[in-house]
């Protein structure tokens, strides 16, 4: 009863209307710049890329919003905010903001919004972005669209069009907020392309002083245990991915995927059934309820190409599908169709790639031979 579900079934005709006058005082596109222990989350840069596009359509400024402690990290990040395309950067520094915590960040963010009144506020759909967005939107009593995969501007009334999967990913829906400002959205990492980094672009910095008091903040960070990077797959940022699905049939066959991946230096991905069957770790699941990836090459082996998988990988530059079934949905959006048995094709591909790469290596090592 309470969700996109019932409304989404019958598309509501968007009422044509003039937006209230007081909306005009809300101007500009904001992107929340997320960082944790000195590491910026790349989704912030992806959002600046998209935000630039939206701001240009609206003819307004694009701003990055940085909250953080008084150490050196924030200063280092400000440069990047400019480099990735923002016109200005709001900075709020306070010792209370050293680590991300919901309460002080919500206080800071809502104060900034109330002071400078942006029309759009974008955050990454990460654990931090979603934690903060929910509280900020509730405090501001404004609408928030979560986990978006597409953003655009309605040329008619200049409102934000946020698209996201619905019904378990089977369909997409576009959500608008005609009632309140700012319009808020969280966006999935790796869905928007990473913009080019242009160092030394001009950037205005607006420092905002926050009155915060540590004794009023209830929750304390006792410890932070960083993920050991080495043993966690970095799927979202891999350039090459070989993924296996239910079509592999048994765990032994999943080894074929791993083997091809090793040969071409790819990360291993998996469809949900392959993860459920225990052939691959949860971190390797690609799709709606797994990771979104944007590799240069994605090889899908024994994966049918269900929408829930597709939304996680269709941003890949090149997609090759291996499937017995010529009618498999994967071929509706793949670039290459290899129709055949995975158990035969995966080893064959491994050989073909190995030969080809070996030849290229020799060529590189002895560039002279080429002219001979």
């Amino acid at each position: 009863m309470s969700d996109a579900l019932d409304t989404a079934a019958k598309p509501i005709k968007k009422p044509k209307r003039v937006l209230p006058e007081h909306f005009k005082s809300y101007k500009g596109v904001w992107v929340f710049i997320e960082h944790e222990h000195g590491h910026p989350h790349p989704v912030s840069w992806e959002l600046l890329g998209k935000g630039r596009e939206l701001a240009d359509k609206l003819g307004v400024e694009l701003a990055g919003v940085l909250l953080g402690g008084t150490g050196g990290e924030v200063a280092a990040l400000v440069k990047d905010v400019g480099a990735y395309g923002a016109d200005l950067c709001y900075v709020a520094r306070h010792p209370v903001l050293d680590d991300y915590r919901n309460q002080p960040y919500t206080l800071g963010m809502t104060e900034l919004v109330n002071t400078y009144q942006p029309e759009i506020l974008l955050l990454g759909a990460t654990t931090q972005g979603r934690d903060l967005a929910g509280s900020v939107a509730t405090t501001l009593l404004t609408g928030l669209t979560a986990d978006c995969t597409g953003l655009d501007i309605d040329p008619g009334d200049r409102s934000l069009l946020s698209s996201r999967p619905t019904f378990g990913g089977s369909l997409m829906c576009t959500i608008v907020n005609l009632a309140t400002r700012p319009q808020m959205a969280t966006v999935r990492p790796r869905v928007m392309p990473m913009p080019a980094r242009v160092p030394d672009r001009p950037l205005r910095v607006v420092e905002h002083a926050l009155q915060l008091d540590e004794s009023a903040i209830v929750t304390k960070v006792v410890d932070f245990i960083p993920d050991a990077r080495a043993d966690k797959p970095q799927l979202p940022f891999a350039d090459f991915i070989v993924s296996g699905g239910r079509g592999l049939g048994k765990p032994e066959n999943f080894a074929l995927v791993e083997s091809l991946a090793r040969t071409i230096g790819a990360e291993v991905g998996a469809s949900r059934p392959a993860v459920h069957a225990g052939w691959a770790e949860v971190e390797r699941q690609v799709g709606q309820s797994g990771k979104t990836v944007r590799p240069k090459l994605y090889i899908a082996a024994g994966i049918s190409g269900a929408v829930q998988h597709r939304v996680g990988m269709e941003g890949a530059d090149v997609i090759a599908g291996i499937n017995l079934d010529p009618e498999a949905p994967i071929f509706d959006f793949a670039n290459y169709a290899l129709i055949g048995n995975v158990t035969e094709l995966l080893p064959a591909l491994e050989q073909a790639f190995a030969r080809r790469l070996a030849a290229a290596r020799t060529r590189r090592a002895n560039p002279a031979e080429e002219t001979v």
Partner: protein
Amino acid sequence: MHIAVCIKQVPDSAQIRVHPVTNTIMRQGVPTIINPYDLFALEEALRIKDRTAAKVTVLTMGPPQADDALRKCLAFGADEAVLITDKVFSGADTLATSYVLAAALKTLDAREPVDLVFTGKQTIDGDTAQVGPGIATRLGYQLLTYVSKIRELDADSRRILVERRAEGGVQVLESALPAVVTMLEGTNEIRFADMPGMFRAARQEVERWNRDAIGVDLAKVGLKGSPTVVAQVFGPKPKAVKAFRVAGDTPAAMAEAFVDRLFADYPHLEEAMLEHLEQVDRQGAKE
């Protein structure tokens, strides 16, 4: 200690089909389930109950049929169940949903003070992960999202120590009750109800609360209270070009043909792959 668990009944989205031509949802016969993420929240609450004899009340805002979902929770071991149901609540987005749930929790709290509220990480139909933060913000409770473990909980000192999934690591947070905890998936496994539990669930009364019971402002609930609206629904767009079908009589021939074609179409891929492999080699050598 009194723990409230918010659960939602959702259509089993694994069984939802979209008509390929008309893009309409075929809901007929789609079974409903308890939002799978909420079961982790419920189980966590029940484990606390097992340890400390806490009282667990489950709440849901939903249509009358959501009664089934609440009864299942009773069978698992929840003590009481409240169905928040009223025609005016329907069509709510997360802002309006958290308003109603917060109002209901206040009502519950007035009857028997609530120390801890659990929600799932997110729902599989709304998928927003916003209702938990929304409830905490409205009630002024501490918010602990994406919790993977409750390390310590002490009702007397009102202290709670949790592990929270953050970006790039795990935050260990110390906080105070009352708090809202949104539970991460995979943290525990819901128990199998015993027969006495099934009997209790079948017989027990599920309380029903409407707008009057929780005293809400009608402008803030349901469709009216929801700033976001769905403007359009559409299916995934087919790519303009169909996949190129790689020919070959044998798997080996097909593989060769593919690799040739791939690198001819995208020469930079070969370069990138080589460079990446060299980098991997270098790293391997270092370790």
